[in-house]
């Protein structure tokens, strides 16, 4: 029994010690951000998500960067020249670039980082965003040596990039996460673990102070950054919060200053939040759409696909379900990309839809095979699927079964074309229609419909080689017209709307923008 009596005392002691060690209150950071889930990595070559990209853009500096309105502006490169054929870019770096450990940043660092992202060994999920560079794809596939890739460094301050095709958006592409530089010695010394706070080295306006799993990433001002005044805050904490209601509670009680991720505002509260001064909605470069498996009957028949597309009332989905003032999507590419006018698409037309289905041999849906609509498990996806299921039943007389799978299973079903119709979404990586349209080129990994159209492929090919910007966009618009008004491998439903929450009387440097780019270095306190 003496042992028994000792237990409460021992437990108390243990508890007290763990309370002291586990709960060390730390001073609040100048800015606390709810950033979404736990970052999977802070290695720019391996990043594939937006929430990681956001932190990386504060930790590393590319040749260009995005400003608070999503516009691309010079960063590590102070200027560049373009050859007359638009294929060779010569970037001149600023002379005062330093890594956070004091070493100078040179053009070789950029070359090394880009080649590293391309190396098959790195297994970068975004390697293909570098494929515009001459021989980059061949190097990635192991068919060409690193020396053959179109990257030259005539001196420490100059990086010459040879492209396969003239890419007018190439300078803005260099602000993308995969193009950010990493410190060679650190990467080689620490391997996979180089992004831990005690080994990390970077060149951005902020440096990595701490990274606690599932808790927060803490950043502090990098004193070695070339323009230290750009980092206006001493410390920023990016919290890992996945639940919208929790993020909103933290924000409402002042424990967080900013809700950045579009998933972090509870959708049920959107009607009440609209009109509040701290609610900042804005359209995003992202589209919610359904895709057909065109390799399976009955969707091999374009008339059936068209009938299904025309039977949907998209307005009712954004009015009744999403309720965030989302613009309905008639084309895949959202509006707002400079100089690009996406095709008008086709409005809802139940009568034509019924006629088309009849022509395809299914009058009023009679004899139509059993088909299913696949979506990944989420309340929103389910509500939309139920609504569209009812519309198809009502307009076309077709029974559609709902098939709900959890994320990894759903992705596998998409990859193996094991579906009839599937829910999808796509977020643009850069502000050019190519980021959307390239998905549907024959054989692309993201095609996931089995659809192939020689005219579409050749239009995209020609657009790639076209040096004239206006003509290039016209070719892309032609291709998109095929996609959304003739062939219908997909049905665009609506474009996403992002929403930021912050008090505009306290914080500046934040603007809703298409790319949902909100660089930490642009955020500052409003001076009173």
């Amino acid at each position, binding site marked *: 029994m003496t042992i028994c009596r000792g237990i409460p005392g021992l437990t108390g002691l243990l508890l007290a010690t763990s309370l002291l060690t586990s709960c060390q209150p730390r001073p609040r950071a100048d800015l606390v951000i709810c950033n979404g889930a736990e970052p999977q990595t802070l290695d720019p070559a391996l990043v594939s998500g937006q929430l990681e990209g956001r932190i990386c853009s504060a930790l590393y500096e590319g040749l260009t960067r995005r400003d608070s309105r999503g516009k691309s502006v010079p960063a590590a490169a102070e200027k560049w020249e373009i050859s007359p054929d638009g294929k060779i870019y010569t970037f001149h770096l600023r002379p005062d670039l330093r890594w956070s450990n004091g070493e100078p940043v040179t053009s070789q660092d950029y070359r090394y980082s880009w080649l590293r992202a391309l190396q098959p060994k790195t297994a970068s999920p975004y*390697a293909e965003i570098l494929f515009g560079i001459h021989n980059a794809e061949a190097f990635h596939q192991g068919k060409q040596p690193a020396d053959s890739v179109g990257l030259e460094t005539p001196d420490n301050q100059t990086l010459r990039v040879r492209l396969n095709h003239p890419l007018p958006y190439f300078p803005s592409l260099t602000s993308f996460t995969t193009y950010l530089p990493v410190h060679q010695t650190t990467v080689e010394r620490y391997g996979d673990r180089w992004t*831990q706070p005690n080994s990390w080295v970077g060149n951005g306006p902020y440096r990595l102070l701490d990274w606690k799993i599932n808790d927060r990433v803490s950043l502090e001002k990098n004193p070695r950054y070339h323009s230290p005044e750009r980092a206006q805050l001493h410390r920023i904490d990016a919290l890992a919060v*996945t639940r919208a209601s929790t993020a909103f509670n933290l924000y409402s*009680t002042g424990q967080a200053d900013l809700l950045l991720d579009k998933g972090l505002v509870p959708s049920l509260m959107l009607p009440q939040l609209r009109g509040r001064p701290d609610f900042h909605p804005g359209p995003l470069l992202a589209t919610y759409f359904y895709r057909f498996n065109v390799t399976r009957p009955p969707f091999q028949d374009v008339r059936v696909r068209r009938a299904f597309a025309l039977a949907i009332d998209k307005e009712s989905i954004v009015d009744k379900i999403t309720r965030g003032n989302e613009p309905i999507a008639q084309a895949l590419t959202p509006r707002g990309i400079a100089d690009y006018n996406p095709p008008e698409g086709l409005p809802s037309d139940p009568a034509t839809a019924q006629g088309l289905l009849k022509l395809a041999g299914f009058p009023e849906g009679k004899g139509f095979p059993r088909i299913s609509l696949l979506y990944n498990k989420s309340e929103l996806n389910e509500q939309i699927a139920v609504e569209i299921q009812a519309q198809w039943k009502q307009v076309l007389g077709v029974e559609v079964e709902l098939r709900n799978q959890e994320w*990894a299973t759903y992705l*596998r079903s998409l990859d193996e074309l094991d579906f009839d119709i599937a829910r999808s979404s796509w977020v643009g990586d850069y502000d050019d229609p190519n980021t959307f349209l390239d998905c549907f080129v024959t054989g692309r990994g993201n095609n996931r419909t089995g659809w192939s159209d020689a005219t579409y492929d050749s239009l995209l090919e020609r657009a790639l080689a076209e040096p004239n910007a206006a003509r290039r966009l016209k070719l892309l618009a032609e291709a998109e017209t095929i996609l959304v008004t003739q062939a219908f491998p997909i049905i665009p439903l609506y474009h996403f709307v992002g929403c930021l929450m912050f008090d505009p009387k306290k914080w500046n440097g934040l603007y809703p923008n298409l790319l949902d780019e909100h660089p930490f270095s642009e955020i500052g306190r409003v001076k009173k």
Partner: protein
Amino acid sequence: MISFLIRRLLYSIPVALLVIIVCFLLVRLAPGSPFSSERALDPATQQMLESKYGLSGSLPQQCARYIGSVVRGDLGDSLKFRGRTVLEIISQSLPRSLLLGSIAFLIAIGLGVPLGSWAAARNGKTEDRWLNGFALLTLSIPTFVLAPVAVLSLSFAIPIFPPAGWGTPIQLVLPSICLALPFVGVCARLTRSGLLETIGADFIRTGRAKGVSEKTLILLHALRPAVLPLVAYAGPLAASILTGSLVIEEVFAIPGIGQFFVSGVMNRDVFLVSGVVLIYCILLLFFNLIADWLTAILDPRIRLQS
């Protein structure tokens, strides 16, 4: 005593191994790849990743490789959180869950046992009925309702506690209460029924006949054998409460280990899932051992050797 402990520990090793083998195989057999995302990955990269993490070859080969490394003390790398080892994830997040869980455990026992004893003493009276009702209520309200209601009432309506977060002792109050409350009901009911059964036993009647006061009778004589069912229940309870809860951790933004049970499976992060399941298994075996040992101390009729 020592031979009992050693024997039990030796039995635990094959149990733990079997558990992680089954867990590893189940996650690997589930459709979907740990490396897939909405953006398609080219097959070469996929293969590269599989061989890098030891997931190439046949399933038995992969499993054997994994068990081999576990035996050497290496739980592998997380497949989703690149550059993080499973051991590192567990060692960062487990202490937080342990802290929160032990507070919740103490609340559950510390509130449940006195409430149950009190109810047993007032058997059949109004207080007993109220307490039964309360126990049933705490048992039936799911945490995903309880936690938001607690936040709404104690962080917003009456702003006493912060609604979420980790780092200060006050942030522990709401989550530990929400984690403990369903178990308070169970503990109270177990104690009450155990006590009622004992109170009717011969030795208590003898005590009463000898003129021992009711208080001494319950606290000194009846409670000891009466808590035996509670002790048997407390073992698995401790293991599950200490390894965190997905709902509580998500609602209160607590960086504990509970979330990895679910997110690991969703991501097919096979090493992470097997790692956290192994920890759960070890804790479960450990607390069951403690419970058996306590039972032997409390009940002289039970011999550890038997």
